[in-house]
């Protein structure tokens, strides 16, 4: 069997990860379509917003201060947020690499881009670095606007909802979705890297995680294959552990020729600063 085939025994992890992503994409699609067909309300089917982890972040303030959920959110959002935060504190930002349906879509679009052009087009370091802070700015802006307007302010801009909501009406969210889809062809996981507010939150929590992805320099031969396979543009080949930006997709581990060079280990070493740059892949 071709070593690059996802069914090759050495790629069992990728098979499991993709199966997980497909499962969550299908589930979210089902919720979106069902809501469109049946309608909402007590007699209908819950809106997509009730199944959104970020909805938990948005509604938390209102719930804590007033005991009320923002419109379209519910207790399910807080349950999902709790689950995602627990996963992050134990395993790092693996929600992004293993569960997030929107991350999965971007990843698959990126694969199409790679097939079309034979490569990706990462941004130069001097643009990539400052741009990575944009998602923190967005997170702060969304929280501020949500609290001050007391509603899901981000809803109409949300590309996740524009896709899985299956309404496809002209809206800012749909325009953003189309733009992101185009960008994802050229730059892997563009939204995750530069814009996702939920990813921003997880990247802050991830360095506290119990299980870390570490590089053992004594085993590393400096081939840079890990850097070439990293969708988040992390300089895996030169760090001690992969830090907050790592979405734990484990592509680096799978492509590393030395089984002991990259390991998943529980331990309390402090994470080094968030590693940057996509240029290392070249």
């Amino acid at each position: 069997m071709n070593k690059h085939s996802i069914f090759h025994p050495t790629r069992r992890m990728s098979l499991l990860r993709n199966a997980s992503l497909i499962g969550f994409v299908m589930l979210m699609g089902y919720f979106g379509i069902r809501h469109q067909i049946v309608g909402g309300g007590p007699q209908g089917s819950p809106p997509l917003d009730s199944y959104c982890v970020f909805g938990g972040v948005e509604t938390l303030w209102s719930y804590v201060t007033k005991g009320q959920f923002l419109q379209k959110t519910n207790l399910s959002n807080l349950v999902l947020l709790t689950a995602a935060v627990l996963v992050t504190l134990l395993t790092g930002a693996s929600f992004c690499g293993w569960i997030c349906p929107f991350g999965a879509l971007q990843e698959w679009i990126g694969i199409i881009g790679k097939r079309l052009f034979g490569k990706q087009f990462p941004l130069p370091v001097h643009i990539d670095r400052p741009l990575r802070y944009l998602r923190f700015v967005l997170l702060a802006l969304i929280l501020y606007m949500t609290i001050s307007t007391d509603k899901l302010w981000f809803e109409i801009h949300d590309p996740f909802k524009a896709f899985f909501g299956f309404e496809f009406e002209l809206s800012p969210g749909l325009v953003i979705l189309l733009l992101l889809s185009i960008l994802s062809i050229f730059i892997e996981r563009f939204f995750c890297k530069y814009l996702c507010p939920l990813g921003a939150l997880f990247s802050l929590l991830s360095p506290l995680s119990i299980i870390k992805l570490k590089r053992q320099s004594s085993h590393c031969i400096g081939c840079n294959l890990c850097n070439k396979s990293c969708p988040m543009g992390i300089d895996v080949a030169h760090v001690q552990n992969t830090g907050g930006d790592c979405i734990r997709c484990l592509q680096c581990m799978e492509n590393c020729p030395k089984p002991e060079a990259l390991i998943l280990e529980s331990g309390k070493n402090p994470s080094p600063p968030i590693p940057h740059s996509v240029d290392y892949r070249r």
Partner: protein
Amino acid sequence: MRVGKIQYGFTVLIIFLSVIGGAMSLNFWVTKQTIPVTVMFSEDIRGWMTLKQVSEAMKIPVGEVKERLTLPVDTNDAKSLKELASERGLSTEEFKQRLFK
């Protein structure tokens, strides 16, 4: 302690799904929307609400709801605002506004 790649993947999925499963079994998994108790603005009225639910939420008779929405008196009370708006080629937002004029 070392963790294998597959073991890691299963750990991620098991924790995530267990929290949701646990919440479901403890009845914390609530997704359904409820009829708003107080209605002050048009945002409080949702597209999924039937005429009957609008009347309950706004605490006015169904007849008055129909009158404000300029609907015939024999309109089915179980129809939602979204359905009624689209039958008239209106957006739900536009249609809801009539309730507050």
